[in-house]
């Protein structure tokens, strides 16, 4: 049982993750914030015999309601009311970092300020008066260098002693007109507020004037809330007229005005020696160059891709081999029975099909972690933004799309780096159309058998087709479900720095555990269901014509007649392909030729060239594999989007195969 709950807030790139990792060590768990798929990290540490629970808030610049992250942070602070709030500030960027600090002070949070990155301040020879800062703001200020664990003991101690501290909410004078309106609203709120909102009345009033939609929702739930909100809107309109500008902007600038005075008072910077162009800027002149930017990005991606799949796949093969061996041993030990088949093919095979992705996922997140930590990731988004905006996506969407050529599972998990839910969902939904490496054996078999001279060209056009379908789906879904809203690029490009091993390892571990926990269960269930269909009714030969899956194949086969492959074996192979696309070739081998070996000789008896093409198109586009479906479900947190991904891909796959076959027949 945690006795003290604290939370960590701060701007992105202020070193929040490092502080969190240093405070809690390995005692962390990840989950999602209620109702949304924004990662929530929690950890614990013991100090002076007490257990301290640490909640990591999303990195934000303010407590407005512009982004989901900001809403989550405000929601936690106001509704859960942590004992202590630690705000991590990049001391080398006091002006911009302090905006959030001021908002937290106005909220009356029991604040401890962690002035992080003091090494940079010392390097720049700035004189920072920590004492004065603390006195002026009325809260403790602790200088630290989190990556070297400097000052963290003092931070722990201060958190402990700050627990019983009850600070007076901090007030900035916003000038006569605004103060009058604030007074009026504060009175109204005071009269009707209940105890569910741990926020000062003045803060709520201020947020109403700032037109904060989230606070409006909350206030509306109070008795007479509707009246208070409409009063606040009247007051805001009057103020806008009076000030000649938006009261919201006015308030923000007042806060920055206060900060600017504060920084002048507490921080002295030596004159004249400011480096105009830093090393970081010099690297950026190359990396973000109009002509070189995209080639450099592609080189980085190619390198990531090579490592993830060239290094990961052999490891995955070991795991796969290990599970096959285990399955074989189980069958050998228990003899051939219904039960041993369930154990070896269903359960052991199922667990194997989850774990087989682990090497790829671990290496991918190692690479993403390095790219993120050193600062390149935001540059990649910057470079690709123009192109991706045209597709209604975000610059960062380019990374999952490229990774999809290797495997859609880690690619979809990489969508977590997208901050807007719309971009994340859209990028996830189109990802299965990026032809993953598991589909390649199908192409090699069919294209090699039927188009021996143009094998390369055929395979290349399939990849291209996948990209085109992905782009068209993105454009269509954006119009249909998101009304073409665009999420403009505005983000901080942090200075390049050496990645920290601990952050990267933690990051890698969290993502892998999320995959096993969330997606793993769905994958396992799917594999067992397919196994069941292939071995029922009892006593039937596995996946034969008489098995349930064979029966279903027969039922669906007529649907594929217009596509040129209307026989039950093809339908069954496609159904097995839902388990994993690499199984399609093996299944066809078993069903058509008795084994995979003689398959290319037998194939022409079942397919003609056109049917082979249409079968490849079908394999490219139809239903993502179970593992991908599992990841789509766990990442979008919605069966609706998952259903859409499955249904849409099935429809597009079938239609494309049929249209291709029918048109081909017309011209042939």
């Amino acid at each position: 049982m945690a006795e003290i709950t604290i939370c960590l807030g701060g701007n992105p790139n202020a070193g929040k993750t490092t502080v969190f990792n240093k405070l809690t060590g390995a005692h962390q768990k990840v989950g999602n914030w209620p109702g949304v798929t924004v990662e929530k990290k929690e950890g614990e540490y013991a100090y002076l015999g007490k257990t301290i629970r640490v909640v990591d808030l999303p990195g934000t610049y303010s407590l407005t309601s512009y982004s989901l992250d900001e809403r989550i942070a405000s929601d936690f602070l106001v509704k859960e009311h942590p004992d202590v709030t630690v705000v991590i500030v990049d001391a080398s960027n006091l002006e911009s970092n302090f905006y959030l600090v001021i908002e937290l002070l106005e909220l009356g949070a029991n604040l401890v300020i962690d002035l992080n990155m003091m090494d940079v301040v010392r390097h720049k020879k700035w004189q920072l008066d920590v004492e004065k800062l603390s006195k002026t703001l009325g809260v403790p200020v602790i200088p630290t260098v989190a990556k070297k664990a400097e000052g963290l003991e003092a931070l722990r101690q201060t958190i402990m002693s700050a627990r019983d501290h009850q600070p007076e909410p901090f007030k900035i004078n916003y000038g006569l007109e605004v103060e009058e309106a604030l007074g009026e609203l504060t009175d109204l709120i005071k009269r009707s507020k209940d105890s569910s909102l741990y926020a000062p009345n003045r803060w709520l009033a201020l947020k109403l004037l700032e037109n904060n939609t989230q606070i409006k929702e909350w206030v509306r739930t109070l008795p007479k809330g509707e009246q208070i909100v409409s009063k606040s809107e009247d007051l805001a309109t009057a103020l806008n007229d009076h000030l000649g500008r938006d009261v919201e902007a006015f308030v923000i600038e007042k806060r920055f005005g206060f900060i600017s005075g504060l920084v002048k008072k507490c921080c002295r910077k030596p004159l004249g020696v400011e480096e105009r162009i830093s090393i970081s800027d010099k690297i950026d002149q190359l990396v973000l160059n109009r002509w070189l930017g995209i080639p450099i990005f592609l080189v980085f991606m190619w390198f990531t891709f090579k490592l993830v799949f060239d290094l990961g796949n052999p490891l995955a093969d070991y795991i796969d081999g290990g599970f096959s061996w285990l399955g074989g041993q189980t069958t050998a030990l228990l003899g051939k029975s219904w039960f041993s088949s369930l154990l070896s093919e269903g359960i052991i095979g199922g667990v194997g099909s989850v774990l087989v992705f682990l090497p790829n996922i671990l290496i991918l997140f190692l690479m993403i972690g390095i790219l993120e930590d050193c600062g390149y990731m935001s540059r990649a988004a910057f470079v690709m933004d123009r192109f991706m905006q045209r597709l209604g996506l975000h610059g960062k969407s380019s990374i999952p799309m490229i990774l999809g050529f290797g495997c859609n599972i880690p690619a979809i998990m990489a969508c977590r780096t997208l901050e807007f839910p719309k971009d994340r969902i859209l990028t996830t939904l189109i990802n299965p159309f990026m032809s993953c490496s598991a589909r390649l054996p199908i192409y090699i078999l069919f294209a090699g058998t039927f188009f021996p001279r143009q094998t390369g060209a055929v395979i290349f056009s399939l990849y291209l087709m996948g990209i085109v379908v992905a782009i068209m789906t993105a454009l269509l879904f954006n119009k249909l479900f998101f009304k073409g809203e665009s999420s403009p690029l505005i983000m901080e490009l942090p200075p390049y720095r050496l990645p920290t091993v601990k952050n990267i390892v933690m990051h890698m571990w969290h993502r892998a555990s999320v995959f096993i926990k969330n997606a793993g269960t769905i994958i396992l269930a799917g594999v067992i269901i397919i196994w069941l269909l292939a071995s029922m009714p009892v006593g039937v030969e596995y996946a034969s014509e008489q098995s349930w899956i064979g029966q279903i194949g027969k039922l669906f086969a007529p649907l594929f007649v217009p596509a040129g492959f209307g026989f039950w074996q093809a339908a069954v192979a496609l159904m097995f392909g839902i388990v994993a696309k690499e199984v399609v070739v093996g299944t066809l081998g078993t069903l058509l030729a008795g084994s995979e070996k003689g398959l290319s000789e037998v194939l022409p008896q079942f397919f003609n060239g056109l049917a082979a093409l249409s079968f490849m198109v079908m394999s490219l586009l139809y239903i993502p594999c179970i593992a991908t479906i599992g990841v789509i479900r766990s990442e979008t947190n919605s069966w609706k989007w998952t259903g859409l991904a499955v249904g849409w891909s099935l429809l597009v796959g079938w239609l494309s195969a049929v249209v291709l076959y029918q048109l081909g027949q017309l011209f042939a």
Partner: protein
Amino acid sequence: MVEVMDIRGGRGMAGRLAVMGIFPGSRLRMIQNGRPGPVMVALDEKRFGIGYGMAHRIFVRPVLE
């Protein structure tokens, strides 16, 4: 060095920029003009990437240092 004069965008956009420190009166340095791609600006020690669509609604005037 330029000074921001006006931001002609929706409420959300102006607010989003403002809490990052970009509002009328802020002084920015253009590091990279990627036109028609995004631009990179410096605000004190911080660097921001701003998409072109957004950047062309931020009106600035040059200032002497």
